[in-house]
Structures are given as C-alpha cells and as structure tokens.
C-alpha cells in the first residue's frame, strides 16, 4: 500500500472515534500529506463554522470570520508548539516535539470537524433569526444565538480534549501524567488563544459597529486587562 493510499479523509473518522492505537502510531510518524490533510480540515471546518457565525451580521463579516477562526486555531498551535513540547517531558511524558505537535493538532482537527459538521445547522439557525443589521433583534434571540454558539464550540472543544486525554493516557501509560500534561497544554493554549481572539475580534459583530476585519482598537490593551477593568467596574457598583 502506497503512502498516498494510506492517507485518506476517512482518517478523520478514526480521530473522531478515538482509536488510541492508530492515533498513537500516527503521532509517531511525520508525514507531510497527513499534516496537510489535518490543516485542511481545520481550515474548512472552522472556516465554515466561522462563516455561519459572522453571516448574521453581514456576508462580509461571514467572510472575515471564516478566515479568522481557523487562523486563530493554527496560530495558537504553532505559537505554543515549542512550549508544549518542553512541558510534556517536564511533566512526565517523554515524547519528541513532532509527537506533541501532532497530538495537539489532532485534537484541533477533531474540534474543527465537529464545528464544520454543525455549520449547516448554525447557518439554518441564523437564517431563521431576524437580521441583525436591519431590525433590532430581540434580546432573547440574540442571547439564544450567542448561547448556541457557545454550546457548540464548547462541545467541540471538550470532545477534542477528551480524545487528547485518551491519547496522552495511551502514550504515557498513566492517567495522572496525562492529566498534568493536558492541563498544562490547555492553560497555555487558552491563555494565548484568548488574546488572539481579542486581537482578531469581531466574530459575530455588533449592529452598532461597522463591519471590519480588525477593530481600530485591536492592539490597544489586551483580553486580561479588559476582564480586569470589567471586574473593577462591577466592584465599584457596590461601593
């Protein structure tokens, strides 16, 4: 069987089923074709979901979010790759750089495949909602769509991490080590991912603000500063 025959889109179903033996074997091999397939799934899956997310505001916003959403995932994976590869052996899982990189990328592939599968449903939901731009949608509609987005993204993220945990348990042979490594990787990815999302906002868009790729204030402040200011404002209300 040639290398080309071995690499099929059907591999994605193996990832979704979480077959640890096969996935563990894949992470040990560095195949450019497989890497290309995984990157393609992230671009298409997260891109389609991003398009459905931004479409409520405007078709142009849909295009922007379709580009930004996969970009955040790929950038987070790449930017944290070195740190994650160093953390794994320090926390008891002695795997090389390529294996930690492949494992994290595969968890994002699972999340992106789920997001891509939900994108027609999200598009249908948005299509049935009153337009955000022309009429003021009711508060309940806006909240319902926002909560649905959060639920779908959370489901995709959790599933990806459950599969990653299963893989780490298989590679390390100990659940405690797998938990430590997963927690460290998650913390790093969430920390960077939140800031990247802050810089690349908006995703859904706001009816009172223009459609744009970046906000003019994209690089003013950061996500954590903003959260801190919001907390301070809440606390001042009680003074």
């Amino acid at each position: 069987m040639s290398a080309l025959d071995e690499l099929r889109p059907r591999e994605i179903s193996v990832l979704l089923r979480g077959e640890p033996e096969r996935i563990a074997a894949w992470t040990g091999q560095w195949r450019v074709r497989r890497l290309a397939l995984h990157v393609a799934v992230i671009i298409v899956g997260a891109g389609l979901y991003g398009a459905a997310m931004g479409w409520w505001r405007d078709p142009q916003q849909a295009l922007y979010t379709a580009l930004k959403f996969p970009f955040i995932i790929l950038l987070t994976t790449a930017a944290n790759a070195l740190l994650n590869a160093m953390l794994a052996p320090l926390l008891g899982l002695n795997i090389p750089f390529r294996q930690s990189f492949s494992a994290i990328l595969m968890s994002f592939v699972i999340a992106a495949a789920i997001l891509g599968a939900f994108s027609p449903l999200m598009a249908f939901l948005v299509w049935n909602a009153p337009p955000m731009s022309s009429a003021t949608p009711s508060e309940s509609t806006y909240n319902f769509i926002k909560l649905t987005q959060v639920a779908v993204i959370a489901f995709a993220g959790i599933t990806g991490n459950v599969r990653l945990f299963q893989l780490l348990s298989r590679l390390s042979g100990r659940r405690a080590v797998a938990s430590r490594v997963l927690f460290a990787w998650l913390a790093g990815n969430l920390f960077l991912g939140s800031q990247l999302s802050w810089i690349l906002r908006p995703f859904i868009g706001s009816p009172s603000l223009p459609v744009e790729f970046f906000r003019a204030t994209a690089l003013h402040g950061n996500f954590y500063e903003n959260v801190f200011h919001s907390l301070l404002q809440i606390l001042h209300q009680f003074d």
Partner: protein
Amino acid sequence: MNDQNPIPPIPPQVPPPIPPVMPVSGPRSLGDDPAERVAVPNVIVAIEAILRQPRRVMFQLRQPGAGRLIAAMVFVSVVCSLIYGVVAGTFSGGTQLWAAPIKIAVGLMISALICLPSLYIFTCLGGSQARLVEVSGLLAGLVMLTTILLIGFAPVAWIFSQSTESLAWMGTLHLIFWFIATCFGLRFLEAGFSHSNAKSLAGFRTWVVIFMLVALQMTTALRPILGTSKTFLPVEKKFFVAHWGDCLKAQDESSKSESR
C-alpha cells in the same frame, strides 16, 4: 489367556456444546439470513424491503453500489412527500395545491441534508464503524420510511382537511402524523446503527433532538404550508415556538369574534 481388551477411549469430560437456539450475545449480524443478501433492484422492492425486511436494506447499504439504492430511496421520499403535500394543500386549495407539496418535499430534503454531517460526526464519536455512504443510506431510509407512512396517514388527513376550517387543529394533526411516522423512521435508523459496533447511543439521541428541532423549524421557515399568504415564502423571520403561539392566538381571536 490374559489378553486384555484394549482400553476404550475415555469419553470427553465436557459434553459437546448444544448449539444455541438464539444468539448468545448481541444482535444477529447482517447478512446471516440469505434473504438479506438478495439485491434491491428497484423502488417497489425498496419500499417493500424497508417495511418488511429492514435488515435487507441495512445489509445492501454496506455493499458496493449502495448509491443506487440510496438514490431510489431519495426518489421514493420525494414522490411520497409530494403526494402527501397535495393532500395537505387541499385544506386551503388554490395555489397551496402546488406550493404545499413543493415546500414539504424541499423542507424534508433540506432538513435531512443539513443534519447529515452532524449525524456522521455523532456516530463516529459513538465509536461506530459506519462509513459516510452507509450513514447517508440510513438517513435516506429514515426519510423514506417516514414519507411512506405519511402516505398511509394521507386519507385520514384529507378527510379531516375537508371537514374543518381550523388551521391550528389541522396543523396539530399533521404534526402528530409526522411525529408518529418519524418515530418509526428513527427506529430504523437506530437499528441500523446497532449493527455498526457503536459503543454509545448518547450522541445519536442528541442528534435525534437536533433533527426534530430542525424539521419543526423548517415548517415555520417555509410557511405557510397549510394556510394562505400573499408571498410564497414568509417575509418575517420567526422561531417555530413563536409562530405556533401566534397561530393559537389568532385562532383564539377569530373564535371569539365569531361567537360575538
């Protein structure tokens, strides 16, 4: 002569196993029965098979060339939903005689199409080994069985549509018929997945809820299907619960004005 007779062979300590009447574990595997291996050559046989031998359809969906069977099931679904649509359209008559069939057929197909990717993802997450073609075929089977059963309900629906003017009542009746037919369709789908080594059906059950919600919303997105309107499609976007509430309110107001 002290010749001893040769020692007879010692019989085995464990008695030979008795072949079980029923399989000990799990459902019988598809294709065990030779009748299940007979190909489904045309749409008539496909209809008969899904009603009488659903396992035959499931087995054939795993064979090469399952695409033809899927196409046949989609064709039957479209024809049956068009026929049921005409019956639904007789409630209002006029343009609804052609608009309702189109809306029901298109709505059902789009609902199935937009739910297919998530069905495949949920079945994979549940550990199922079913391929995308098989999942598509099982979904086509669900839709076909649903629409065939709707044809069975059609005469009852027609009689009621000729004897009442209440939109809310007719809408409820059609929803009940659709719900019963869909339950049978889902039973077929679940039986199909039970043969695909799925470890958990939790994802599948979540998908069932999503599919039901999408199909219900489709009835609102393509409204009116029973009543009349100046436009083919609605101008105002609504969620189905809000639409049902509005329909019931309008019904209540009209009955109050009639009683005055």
